[in-house]
């Protein structure tokens, strides 16, 4: 036994798979200990907020303690963020169109470019071929450039409740900074928000946990059914075997996924909880385990150690438990691993078809995928809404299969070498 475990852990593939899988499971377990927000809580008003740290603007403006940092690049960065190369190119276009020789314009020199723009731009001038939309764009651009290179601070004014006039309350200098740790309201969204404005990371961790549970339940159901049918069919032989074999062959040929669709749809939206879905997946995917177990048992049941066990007066139950099961245990474990990962995939597939678990309770990886697809995250370039989900599904499945090939190497010596 000890020897076998040592061998398993010497297999590189098993180790890599095990490491990835453990990392995922640990994250699922540990993450909620630190961040226990409800996974389906709606945070943002807009959809698909990009990943980042969101700091409350009101807090940072009204913050009493400010720090002065003398950072040389602050201006360049601010300008760079406001005035991107596309904008510079359109500015160049307008200026040249307005008769300024191209040689005189240096788009890389921000100060010179802005000055040239200030001196020349006139929103009333209509260049040939310029549409209204273009004109509005130039006006917007000009407004946003206002004070870009100014050195004085921005004035914060508050409305006087009595007079209705504005009173200056504060000046924010360009060198003013606040410590993010002192801002009472900020939120880290490493993976942004999804289409409903929910924190993708929290949702993802929770969904991974639910999907793993679905896989585990589905895998356990499938493996239990497959193991029992395979054992009975293989060991008993005769008519029982014929009947079970017939059923097994039937369900091998009839696509399980199609049955899954039919059943899930028939169950109806209200009945489809995560657990129900898991059980249904298990019920439609025991076939491969049953086949493998049966083949193994048939090759074992006529072996002399089983005959010897019979001659020692052991009962059928004892023989199945002591002389058959230990021999196939490794296969059953491998089958279980595969069933878990295919259960997770099946749930994902179902959810994309709109047949996933009822959506009000828990997220699953498939549901997250489904939402991202419905809101066209992939077309809109909102990668954080779908890519981490795909990655997690692929990694779970990959790690489990890697563990499995590692086990296979150990248990199936013909593949060594």
């Amino acid at each position: 036994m000890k020897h076998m475990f040592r061998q398993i852990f010497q297999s590189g593939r098993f180790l890599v798979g095990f490491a990835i899988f453990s990392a995922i499971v640990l994250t699922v377990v540990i993450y909620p200990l630190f961040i226990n927000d409800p996974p389906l809580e709606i945070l943002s008003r807009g959809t698909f907020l990009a990943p980042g740290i969101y700091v409350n603007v009101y807090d940072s403006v009204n913050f009493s303690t400010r720090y002065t940092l003398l950072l040389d690049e602050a201006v360049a960065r601010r300008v760079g963020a406001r005035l991107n190369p596309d904008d510079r190119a359109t500015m160049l276009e307008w200026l040249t169109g307005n008769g300024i020789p191209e040689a005189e314009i240096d788009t890389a020199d921000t100060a010179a470019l802005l000055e040239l723009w200030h001196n020349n731009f006139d929103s009333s001038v209509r260049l040939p071929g310029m549409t209204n939309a273009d004109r509005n764009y130039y006006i917007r651009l000009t407004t946003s450039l206002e004070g870009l290179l100014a050195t004085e601070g921005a004035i914060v004014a508050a409305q006087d409740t009595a007079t209705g006039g504005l009173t200056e309350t504060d000046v924010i200098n360009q060198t003013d900074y606040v410590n993010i740790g002192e801002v009472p309201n900020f939120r880290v969204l490493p993976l942004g928000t999804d289409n409903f404005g929910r924190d993708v990371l929290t949702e993802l961790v929770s969904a991974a946990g639910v999907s793993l549970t679905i896989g585990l339940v589905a895998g356990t159901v499938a493996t239990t059914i497959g193991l029992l049918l395979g054992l009975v069919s293989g060991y008993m032989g005769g008519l029982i075997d014929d009947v079970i074999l017939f059923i097994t062959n039937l369900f091998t040929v009839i696509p399980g996924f199609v049955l899954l669709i039919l059943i899930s749809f028939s169950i109806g939206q209200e009945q489809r909880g995560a657990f129900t879905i898991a059980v249904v997946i298990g019920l439609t995917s025991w076939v491969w385990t049953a086949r493998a177990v049966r083949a193994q048992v048939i090759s074992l049941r006529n072996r002399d150690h089983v005959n010897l066990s019979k001659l020692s007066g052991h009962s059928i139950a004892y023989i199945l438990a002591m002389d058959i099961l230990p021999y196939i245990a490794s296969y059953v474990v491998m089958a279980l691993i595969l069933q878990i990962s295919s259960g997770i995939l099946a749930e994902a597939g179902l959810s994309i078809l709109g047949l996933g678990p009822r959506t009000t309770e828990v997220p699953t990886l498939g549901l997250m995928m489904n939402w991202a697809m419905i809101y066209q995250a992939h077309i809109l370039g909102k990668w954080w809404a779908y890519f981490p989900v795909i990655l997690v599904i692929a990694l779970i499945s990959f790690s489990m299969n890697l563990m499995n090939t590692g086990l296979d190497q150990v248990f199936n010596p013909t593949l060594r070498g």
Partner: protein
Amino acid sequence: MKGYRDYFLRKFAWFIVTVVVAFTLNFILPRLMPGDPVAAIAARMAQGMSNATGVQAVYEQYTRLFAIDKPILEQYVVYIGNVFRGDFGYSISQYPRTVADVISASVWWTIALQFPAIIVGWIIGNTLGALAAYVRKGFDKVLLPLSIFLSNMPAFGMAIVLLVIFSVDLKWFPTSGGYDYAMIPNMSWDFVWSVIVHYQLPFWSIVLITIGGQAIGMRSMAIYELNADYVKYARFLGIKDFKIIQYVFRNAMLPQITGLALSIGTMVGGALVAEIIFNYPGLGSTILTAVLGGDYPLISATTLIITLMALVAFFALEIVYGLIDPRIKAAQSD
């Protein structure tokens, strides 16, 4: 030849039995479920839709078609009779189109997409797997983990990755559909070209998924065969390595055909989901619209059609297998 005829007849009998069971399951499963969707949908018909004449028409036709007021056995007989006439009733979500109409418009897209893709993936995967087994060393070390990763990528995941890279970012291919929606299907060169362009991404995403699994299977089969006694014997008679690889490839490929037959059901499931990502006008998208529209008649008919397609493919592969493996014939004529 007698051996092969027996084999064929046995497989054919098995095919017929599976078809009958598939029919029965398709009929009985929904009726076993709590709430009986057939009855539920018939009942909902009265309020559901806005088009009053439509509701009435569907309701009447549906009651007649599925004989839901009759005993279950009679319902079954009526159901089989209707299916054989190609009569699946009206689609609820796409009324006034009939289910048969909706399916016949999409089934060919699926067939034309999935079967070539699975076959191409199978061929490439097997070639790579055999190479990995023969070359071992570096090639194997890279190919095996890569294959495992590829085959474990969910089909829809692969579809999205390809879609984002090649149509959203690079804009080489269109993002959705089976052809340009501005066009009306006809046999012009423009239309055919549009179909070909739209075909690429769905096709390759299925191919890539298939490759991984097949390469893994072929690799272990080929390693097993390379250790077989006949390989050693052939080597000791001075037969060239190249020839021996041919032996191994052929003999390792035979079980892979059975493997393909057995897993075709699973593959079709994954490929259906890939269709949805590309909004491909096949059966996958049909299922999606049917699910969203609560269109029970359409779901039931689509699942039946997919099952039948998988059964036919399975049967065809078994027949081919019997033709090319001499052991089958010998086993039958004993």
